[in-house]
């Protein structure tokens, strides 16, 4: 189980050992709590429930509070179930895991919620081209034709049109782990990560190869 929940702090750049400047995103994970451990016998699959950022009891609704009480773990703002394999036993409810899980991990995948852009035209959303502004043209930012006439007499499903853009889950694969700061629970990843600063992200060790 090489997975943690964290908060995106922001971007800066750091110098590596050869003196090269590397653009990095800083993510603070601190210590994640393991709430529930699911195993093969009882649940049919192996997984752990990770919790991020402890909050006072009064901030949790009653169904969630019941869950935390049953496990005897402190309530957290975010809960996320992560699959792991049978060999990953030794995890117990109430344990804390920090950035040390990414020791010897070179690349990670990061999921987050992108910034919402609302109802957006095709130029911003799909990088369509703009029409010319002069010479009698009226189609400047519109998408153009949506298809033929008599046949098929309909618009094909899935055609790229304007609509909601952003505010969705996006995963960036294979981001290089530049350094890990165990003391303050920070992970430094080369490149950008989805979402705003202070957004919640999930970091997972990338598949090998």
């Amino acid at each position, binding site marked *: 189980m090489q997975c943690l929940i964290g908060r995106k*702090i*922001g971007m*800066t*750049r*750091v*110098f590596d050992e050869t*003196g090269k*400047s590397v653009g990095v995103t*800083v993510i*603070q994970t601190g210590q994640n709590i393991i709430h529930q451990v699911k195993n093969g016998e009882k649940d049919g699959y192996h997984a752990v429930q990770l919790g991020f950022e402890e909050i006072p009891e009064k901030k949790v609704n009653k169904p969630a509070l019941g869950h935390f009480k049953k496990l005897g773990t402190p309530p957290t703002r975010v809960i996320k179930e992560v699959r792991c394999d049978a060999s990953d036993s030794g995890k117990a409810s109430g344990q804390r895991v920090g950035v040390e899980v990414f020791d010897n991990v070179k690349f990670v995948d990061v999921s987050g919620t992108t910034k919402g852009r609302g109802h957006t035209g095709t130029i911003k959303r799909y990088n369509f081209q703009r029409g010319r502004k002069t010479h009698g043209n009226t189609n400047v930012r519109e998408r153009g034709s949506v298809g033929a006439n008599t046949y098929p007499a309909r618009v094909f499903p899935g055609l790229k049109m304007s609509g909601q853009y952003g505010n969705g889950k996006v995963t960036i694969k294979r981001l290089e782990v530049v350094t890990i700061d165990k003391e*303050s629970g*920070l992970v430094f990843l080369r490149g950008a990560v989805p979402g705003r*600063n*202070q957004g919640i992200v999930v970091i997972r060790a990338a598949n090998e190869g």
Partner: protein
Amino acid sequence: MQEIIRKIERKQMGERQVNYTPGDTVSVSFRIKEGDKERIQQFQGVVVQTRGTGSTATVTVRKASGNVYVERIFPIYSPLIVDVKIMKRGSVRRAKLYFLRGRTGKSTRIKEKK
């Protein structure tokens, strides 16, 4: 949140003091790697612009190399930069000395600060 970023940058910055302004003539010494040998090279010229804050700050230095002018951008807190010496203090009225780019010879002189 920003506090954490600032702390990281302060750690990167180390002890180096930055006290030049645009118009000054500086000599930047930096390590350069040739094969597996390392040596220190100087780059002396006029500061055209300073840019960025924290550990991301850079400085653009312009000098005449023969009869062409060369501008070089240094990330000033890079560990490859050994030293920045101020040779002369210049007196200029703007923050970015882009007007130097069209000029050669005598017209590139900058008044010295008293």
